[in-house]
Structure formats: C-alpha cells, structure tokens
C-alpha cells in the first residue's frame, strides 16, 4: 500500500501527539457513520419539509393514511434525532475518541454491530411508524421489539466505548470524553426506564407506569433526551472539533469542569417543566421550573468556552465557512438554552405551551445548534477522513447562508405564529365573558401564512443539505477520475 501522509498532520499542528495516527485507528467505521449521517439528514429533513407542507396545505397527504401528518411526524423526529444526530455523534465520537485516547476502538466487530444495528433500527422505525404502530410516547414511539434492539445495540456501543477507554494510552481524559460518557450512560438509563412495557402482542404493549407517573417518567425522559442526546454529546464534539478547526487552545479548563458537572446535575431535574399547569403536584412543577432557570449559566458555560476559544481567530470566521457554521451553532445553542428556561417560567409557559412557539424553540436548537455543528464537522472531516479535497469549496459558504436564512425564516415564523395562537386562545370578550375565538378552526386558519413561511425556511435548510451531499458525491467522483486506484488512502488496520 502506498504511504500517504496522514491527513491529520496539518502543517501548523504537526504535533508529535498526532504521530500515532497512521495505521492505528479504525477510520473505516468513521466513514460508514459519516455516510449514514448524510443519508439520514436527507431523509429526515425531507420528511420535515413534507409534513410542513401538510400543515400549510393538508391535501398533500393525498388521502393516504401512511402519509398523514400524525403518522409521519414521529418518523421525522426519530429520523432527525436518532438517525441524523445519532449518526453524527457516532461519527465524531469514533473519530475523536481514538485520537484522544491514542488507541484503536477496543473491538472492530462491536463497532460494526453498533453501526449496522443502529441503521436497522432506523429502517424498522420507517417500517412501523407510518403504519400506526406506536407506543404513543413522544420521542419514544418505537414499539417494544425495536426498543429491545436499541437496548442491545446501545450496550454493544457502551462495552466498546468503555473498553476503548480501558485500553487507552493516555492518563488524562480530555473534556470531550466526559461529555461522551454522560451520553452513553444516561441515554441507556433513560431509554430503559421510559420503555418499561409489558408486551401483549408482537406490536403492542402496555406501559408499566400509569397516569401521572407515566407522564412524569415520559418527560423526565423527553427532556433529558434533549439534554443527553442533543446537548452533551454535541458539546463533546464541540470541545474536540472547534479547537481543532480554530487551532487554538480551549479557553478555560476550569470552566469546562464546572459547566460539565453543573449541567449534568441540573438537567436531570428539569423535566416537569413540560407539565406546568397539569395535574402534576405544584411543588414538582416548581422544581422543574427553578431547575430550568438554574440551567442558564451551566448551558452558557459551554457557549462562552467555545466562543472564547475563538479569541484571536475571529478574522478567520470571515473567510472560513467551517468556522462560520461553528459560530452560528454555538450562538444558537446559547439562544435556545436561554429560551428554554424562559418558556419554563409559569407565566410565559401559560402563553407559549401547546403553541407553535415550542416548535420554533426546538428547531432553533435542532437546526441551529445540532444541524450547523454537524455540517461544520462533516465539512472539516471530509478531506481528513477520505483524503481528498472538496470539489466545490465555495459551495460550503453558499450552504452556510442558505441554512442560516432558512433557520431565521423558520424560527421567526413559529415565534409569530405561536404568539398569535397563544393570544387568540386566551382572548376573552369583555362584554360577554366568553372566549373571543371559540372556534378552533378559525385560529388554525390564521396560522396558514406562518406555516407557508416555515415551509420556505425548512426547504432552504433542506436545500443546503442537498448541496452538501452533492458536494461530497462530486468530490468522490473527481477524486476517482484523477487519482490512480490506490485503494484506501489511509493504511489498513493494524
């Protein structure tokens, strides 16, 4: 095999720390997860665009039950959270942890079982949810056989993950690894507890918890799925890929320790803020609310550690689209983690709950934070992982602007639509003392323009992902056409 210089050894960072790179690491598994990430991004976001169209123009479902909003909405959320975000986390974790721990993944077979198992789980979601097979728990819709499969695949991942930590060749565990650990451990606990169901048939089961307990467990799970699937692993990714891309030291080690522990400790209590003004005891509601307020600083700790790492590199943000993606991602993280606590305040929640404001809130996190950070990582990894340059580097900047415009249209329309809805619902006629707009459909009609605007924003965001996928495909073709077939640019397994 031809010896190719390690793509990791960039001139400015040809550190001896990275000399181990060649031949030691399993990058084939990273490539698999990379490809899955891009594939599921396309599928999940296309579904999002389609159901956004259905809200603006319902005949889009063509009268086919499997295509209706209620059936496809959980498929969209599962596809973007567990398929797209899950796979980018695995891409980044498998790439960075081998390098941070200076060792190959503990067991290659487990890596592959994890990869193929996870993709099969996603395919089985697509084969059940549209047909109405669901547990009816938000973000935990998948029926019990798939839940069992998730548990098995997750345990495989966990064994491989902690096995790799056990055989590491360094003493110090870098901050990214702590965040990955919180991801692996907490998701296992959350998934198992919230999916405790007694199977009745192959596709149907009954939850162990009932009524209020079920609701509390569900939102302990739902809230912490956001915390430990969409926040902590992504912070870990930020702690690895941001300083690598900026080529600057992390601003404060001390801040990373304090905000890590305060974040994981406080997040786990905040779930009841999803159940304000419900039958949940008022003291439990208060607890959910105050823990959410106390989360502002720990969340912002991650944002400021990221942004302050950019000190002295801000001029490069103007020219480097990867840094642009990262800055916007971290900023949206800061914004969404301020909006969340704001929405958990009783008085604000009374206006915002059940409205499209919530949809806007989750998408400023999902599109802004998870999406933009993922794109930065994919673009940064591509030349290093596949050993070939991007064919259309200028498209990356185009993607950035399309995506940013899309997010702005999305969040602004949902804020405006959500406030409209909230105010219409609570309006009282002063002369009669009755609801001013008692006809539900009347309020829905008023939302149509906001739904169209959201569709435009979502379409732009999806268009950016199409551009990215095309860029990768064109780059692969161009590389195949110009370079002799030397096989994998990275050396084979050790």
């Amino acid at each position, binding site marked *: 095999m031809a010896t190719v210089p390690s793509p990791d050894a960039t001139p400015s960072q040809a550190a001896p720390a990275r000399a181990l790179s060649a031949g030691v690491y399993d990058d084939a598994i990273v490539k698999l997860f990379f490809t899955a990430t891009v594939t599921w991004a396309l599928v999940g976001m296309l579904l999002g665009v389609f159901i956004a169209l259905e809200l603006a123009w319902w005949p889009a479902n063509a009268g086919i039950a499997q295509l209706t909003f209620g059936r496809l909405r959980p498929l969209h959320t599962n596809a973007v959270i567990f398929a797209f975000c899950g796979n980018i986390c695995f891409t980044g974790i498998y790439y960075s942890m081998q390098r941070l721990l200076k060792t190959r993944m503990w067991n290659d077979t487990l890596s592959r079982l994890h990869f193929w198992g996870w993709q099969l789980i996603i395919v089985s979601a697509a084969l059940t949810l549209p047909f109405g097979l669901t547990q009816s728990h938000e973000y935990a819709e998948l029926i019990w056989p798939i839940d069992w499969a998730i548990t098995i695949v997750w345990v495989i991942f966990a064994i491989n993950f902690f096995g790799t930590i056990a055989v590491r060749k360094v003493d110090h565990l870098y901050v990214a690894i702590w965040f990955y650990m919180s991801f692996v451990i907490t998701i296992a606990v959350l998934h198992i507890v919230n999916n405790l169901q007694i199977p009745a048939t192959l596709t149907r089961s009954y939850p162990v918890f009932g009524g209020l307990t079920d609701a509390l467990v569900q939102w302990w799970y739902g809230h912490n799925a956001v915390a430990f699937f969409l926040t902590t692993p992504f912070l870990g990714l930020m702690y690895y890929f941001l*300083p690598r891309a900026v080529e600057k*030291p992390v*601003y404060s080690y*001390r801040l990373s320790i304090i905000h890590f522990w305060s974040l994981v400790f406080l997040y786990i209590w905040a779930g009841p803020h999803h159940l304000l003004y419900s039958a949940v005891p008022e003291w439990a509601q208060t607890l959910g609310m105050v*823990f959410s307020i*106390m989360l502002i600083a720990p969340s912002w700790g991650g944002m400021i550690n990221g942004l302050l790492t950019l000190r002295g590199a801000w001029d490069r943000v103007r020219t480097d689209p990867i840094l642009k993606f990262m800055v916007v991602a971290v900023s949206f993280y800061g914004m969404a983690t301020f909006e969340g606590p704001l929405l958990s305040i009783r008085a604000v929640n009374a206006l915002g709950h059940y409205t499209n404001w919530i949809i806007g809130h989750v998408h400023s996190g999902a599109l802004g934070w998870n999406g933009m950070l993922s794109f930065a990582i994919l673009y940064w990894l591509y030349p290093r992982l596949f050993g070939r340059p991007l064919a259309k580097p200028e498209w990356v900047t185009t993607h950035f602007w399309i995506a940013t415009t899309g997010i702005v249209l999305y969040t602004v329309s949902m804020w405006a639509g959500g406030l409209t809805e909230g105010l219409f619902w609570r309006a009282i006629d002063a002369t009669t003392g*009755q*609801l001013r707009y008692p006809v*539900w459909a009347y309020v829905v009609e008023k939302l149509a323009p906001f739904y169209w605007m959201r569709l435009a924003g979502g379409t732009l965001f999806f268009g950016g992902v199409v551009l990215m996928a095309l860029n990768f495909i064109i780059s692969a073709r161009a590389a195949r056409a110009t370079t002799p077939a030397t096989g994998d640019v990275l050396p084979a397994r050790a």
Partner: protein
Amino acid sequence: MSKKERDQILGHGAESDGIEEYDNPMPNWWVGLFYATIVWAAGYVAYYHFIAKKSYVRELAAQMAEAEQRWPRSTQLAKVEMTPAAIAAGEVVFQANCAACHGAALQGGIGPNLVDTTWIHGSTPEEIVATITNGVAAKGMPTWGPILGNEKVGEVAAYIISKGQAPQ
C-alpha cells in the same frame, strides 16, 4: 488572577490529540449569573409556596368566582319559532359557526350527526336550545349562548329542527 497569569497552557496537549487548554479563570459575570439564578430559585420557592402560598388551583377558583359575578349566567333561554324567515336566518348562522364540526349537511364530523334519530342531549326544542346555549364542555362544544345571543340561537335551533327528525 492578573493579566500576566492569563492564558497559561495546562500542558495536557500531548494527551488530547494536540488540543491544549488554558488554565483561565471562569468569567466573573458567568459565575455571578450562576449564583444569581440559584439565589433566585431558592427565593422563588420560598415566596411561591411558603410566603404568598400561591396555587393555580386556588387562582382558577378565584377567577371563576369573579367571572361569575361580572358576567352572570343568563337564565332566559331562546324561543324557537318555526317560521321560514327564522329557518333561513338559522341556516346562515349554522353554516358560519356550526358546519365546521357538524358538517354542512348536518351529517356530523367532529361533532355528532344532527339529522339521524339519536339525540344525545334531548330532542325537544327546549333541550336543543339548552345544548346550543350552554355547550358541552366535555366534548369541546363551546357555549354558544353568549356568543350568538338568544335570537340567533333560536334561529339556528329552528333550522336544525326543520332539517332533522326531531319532533316539532
């Protein structure tokens, strides 16, 4: 920590893929914000539950009592007159307000069918008027009395009776 001591490299870089970390202090405003939210949280719990002893269950009861005083319930129900003019006016009211749930041809949809022989809440003109006026909260039917006023309630009842199989 003075300016000079800032940006000191910790020296973990060789063990974290070349990524160095500074031993910088946490920004004061950030630490202040964190403490402030903790103090606020304790203060809010003390105020809400122990000092003001607030509860939204009691708040709701108080607001309902106030509303009951400010907008007393009407005790007079609408009268139904089966005249062609009333029925025609009732049709307009029905199509504007009721058709969304009960169907343009009264065949039902979200709300029940009004032209079959089943009368869930009674079939006499008085019972139909009462159902329209007071609504059926459990099923999502609004209280139309104060919204439409007695005259329109009477007209729409006349229209329903004219269309349906209720005894006249």
